[in-house]
């Protein structure tokens, strides 16, 4: 079902797009992904898993997991969460691994467009950190290629309908979606920046040579420096039937609701009361969806009080020391059993409660996407406070490999405002290390101070501890 009335967002539907699912004629709109169009049509079971043939649905909605693989126009393993819907598409569920239909694909075309392009800096990932890193580096006269896997830049900003905190410099009071538009405009106006969307970076080779698939053609990018701002992916939670369609990562619910304008369901159980869990719960209410409860394993919720208050005023219970015992449902989620936890996080028998929900939203934290750091040979360290394995970086965003910098969540989980600043710092440092900066000291002092303020509060103690741990051996 599509959202029509929303207090913040206005959904302008593009023209009608006709497609077929299992031989049935359906209609979506321009701007839909295959997954969002199918959700609108009430299709949540997308495929079957390869080994046990369990139903599979959307989970991350940003192209990171492989839960939504379907066969599109004879091509299997298509991540339909990021695949734009096109006129005449034939979409089929995927039962395990499917062969290609070679009558539909694979006409050999020689693509000698493919070569190696040279640039000063390549930024991998066009979220808030990558956008700011590109803008900063370009402001010092450096040529930058910003590579983004999706069809547009903005990363997770494009679904943040809430107003940001911090100071004026960090866009406090502005909604994430508006910050995204502002950064996109600046990128487009900067003559030093080339934005490559629909570009998947495939590999890092010694000497800062990057292999990328750019608009379906494999290209090389020879850069002097690489800034990695690949972001993060959502953690999962282990309980029986946690793979049922209808159980989503919190980011996926945001994508469906705030970006695609699709109502994810009617009754939601939110798992996790950190900032993401609380904010998404409130956004669900804004979209007219019932939030049955928020459960949180810890005895205290981790998010800001102001977000919790908004939920309490709307009558949504925040159940601390609670977890999901199991989920149930035949083909898709029909409900869950929650229970209380003791002080050692053990389930307390006899406290089980059944909740009838068609959506469960998992907001239990993020893990940095560190594959590229690993491939580049950067030293990695396990720091749970920063989300798991992270590259070891110094206060200038430099990794242990010369010419490779980290920006944003891929270097440790913080929040969007911090990501924009670590992006600025990485871009600035890359420029400085190339001898392109005239005003390094003043800029560095400014960004470092702003970042220091964001990391100063009691809520950021975990991040401070994590950074200290990560740097212990530097």
């Amino acid at each position, binding site marked *: 079902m599509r959202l029509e009335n929303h207090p913040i967002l206005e959904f302008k539907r593009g023209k009608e797009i006709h497609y077929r699912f299992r031989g049935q004629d359906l209609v979506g709109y321009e701007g839909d992904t295959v997954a969002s169009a199918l959700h609108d049509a009430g299709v949540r079971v997308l495929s079957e898993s390869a080994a046990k043939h369990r139903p599979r649905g959307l989970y991350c909605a940003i192209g990171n997991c492989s839960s939504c693989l379907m066969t599109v126009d004879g091509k299997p393993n298509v991540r339909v969460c990021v695949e734009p819907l096109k006129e005449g598409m034939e979409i089929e569920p995927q039962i395990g691994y499917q062969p290609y239909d*070679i009558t539909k694909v694979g006409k050999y075309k020689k693509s000698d467009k493919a070569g190696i392009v040279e640039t000063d800096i390549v930024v991998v990932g066009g979220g808030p950190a990558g956008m700011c890193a590109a803008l900063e580096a370009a402001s010092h006269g450096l040529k930058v290629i910003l590579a983004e896997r999706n069809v547009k830049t903005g990363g997770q900003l494009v679904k943040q309908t809430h107003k940001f905190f911090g100071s004026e410099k960090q866009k406090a009071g502005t909604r994430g979606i508006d910050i995204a538009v502002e950064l996109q405009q600046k990128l487009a106006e900067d003559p030093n920046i080339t934005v490559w969307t629909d570009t998947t970076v495939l590999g890092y080779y010694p000497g800062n040579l990057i*292999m990328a698939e750019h608009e379906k053609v494999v290209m090389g990018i020879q850069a002097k420096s690489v800034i990695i701002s690949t972001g993060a992916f959502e953690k999962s939670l282990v309980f029986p039937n946690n793979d049922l369609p209808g159980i989503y990562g919190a980011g996926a619910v945001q994508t469906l609701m705030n970006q695609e304008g699709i109502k994810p369901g009617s009754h939601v159980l939110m798992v996790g009361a950190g900032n993401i869990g609380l904010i998404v719960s409130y956004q669900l209410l804004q979209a007219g969806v019932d939030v049955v409860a928020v459960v949180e394993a810890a005895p205290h919720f981790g998010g800001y009080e102001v977000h919790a208050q908004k939920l309490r005023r709307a009558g949504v219970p925040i159940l601390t020391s609670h977890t999901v015992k199991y989920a149930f449902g035949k083909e898709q989620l029909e409900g869950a059993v929650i229970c209380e936890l003791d002080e050692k996080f053990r389930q307390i028998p006899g406290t089980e409660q059944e909740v009838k929900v068609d959506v469960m939203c998992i907001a239990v934290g993020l893990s940095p996407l560190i594959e590229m750091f690993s491939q580049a040979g950067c030293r990695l360290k396990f720091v749970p406070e920063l989300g798991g394995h992270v590259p070891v970086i110094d206060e200038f965003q430099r990794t242990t490999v010369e010419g490779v910098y980290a920006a944003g969540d891929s270097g440790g989980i913080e929040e969007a405002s911090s990501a924009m600043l670590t992006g600025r710092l990485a871009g600035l440092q890359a420029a400085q290390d190339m001898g392109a900066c005239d005003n390094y000291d003043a800029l560095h002092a400014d960004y470092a101070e702003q970042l220091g303020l964001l990391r100063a509060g009691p809520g950021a103690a975990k991040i401070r501890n994590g950074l200290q741990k990560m740097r212990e051996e530097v």
Partner: protein
Amino acid sequence: MKDRAEVVIIGGGIIGCSIAYQLAKKGKKALLLERDGIGEGTSSGCDGFVFMQTKKPGKPLELALKSADLLAQFEKELGADLHYVRPGGLILIENEELLKIMEHVVEEQQKQGMEVRIISGDEARAMEPCLSDNIIAAAYSDLDGHINPIDTTQAFARGAAALGVEIETHCPVTGILMENGRVIGVDTAKGKVYSDTVINACGVWAPEIGRMVGMDIPIRPRRGMTLVTEPLGPMFHKVMLDSRYIAIKHHPEMAEGGDEFLKLGVGLSIEQTAHGNILIGNSRDFPEGYDRSVTYEVTRAIARYASKFVPFLQDVSIIRTFAGLRPYCTDGYPIVGPVKSVPGMIMASGLEGDGIALSAVIGDIVSDYAMDGTTKYEVDSFLFDRFEK
């Protein structure tokens, strides 16, 4: 770790593990020493081909045929699913010049009694509908197959351990103990082990052990890179190679002034694993030292070259790349058997790209030598002595 063993095998790759297993079956329990983990070197950096058509007519082909049968037998007796199948293999031919050479090669193989034949491009496409229209013919044999090399190595190791073989991983050998000119044991990171028989099954690293006893073993690491695709339903039924590499073996002058693919040492190899991933290879080059990294130029060239033969591959996602080091021996033959100048030392290395296919028969040969000092096979031409004349 015990300080005395009937036999010490250095190297826990597929060759060392196969020897350990077969030697135990014959009655001697070896101590197997591996510097890293089982099968972590060349045996996991390769494809799984058990290809007969590529073997040189004569001794290598005869041994390969024997080895292929032994692998099937071992899969049964080890009770492990090694994904060993023999669906047949195609060597793809793109032009008349290559066809002429392959006709000659096939004729020679037929004279040896091998079941192999030239088929037309259409016949090849009937077997493998994904093949390009540019393919004019192929050499085909029912005998070719493939196996999971990592599982096979592990299964040999488990089979050996079940028969009482002691396996010591992460235990580098630091020296060879000698007395009166003969081997009496090895020194390791975990202490000395005395033994009258020491087997060097270290593959590309065999020269390092050789140097400890003054042997100059002419084995060099030759790198090969492989691409791994997303898992797909069945797309390929056969294992496949292109004919150019084989043609060059017979006519080295063809390599000169070649295209970008030849310059990078790129050829074609394709197999689809039991899990659905397609392994696309391959390349040959001599890296600096033991460098096992993949390069931009070669991986890209492999992808482009493979797409010429199998067009739909250009739409398939590559999810991983890896490289391995083949133990290339300068005269093209392996080094197998006792070393006359170093009594107590037995060689089992230098199989280049044939190690997986020949693992079973080499294990049989070397375990024979370790039991009785001789073998039922006529393989004197593989002795290290040939380099000492």
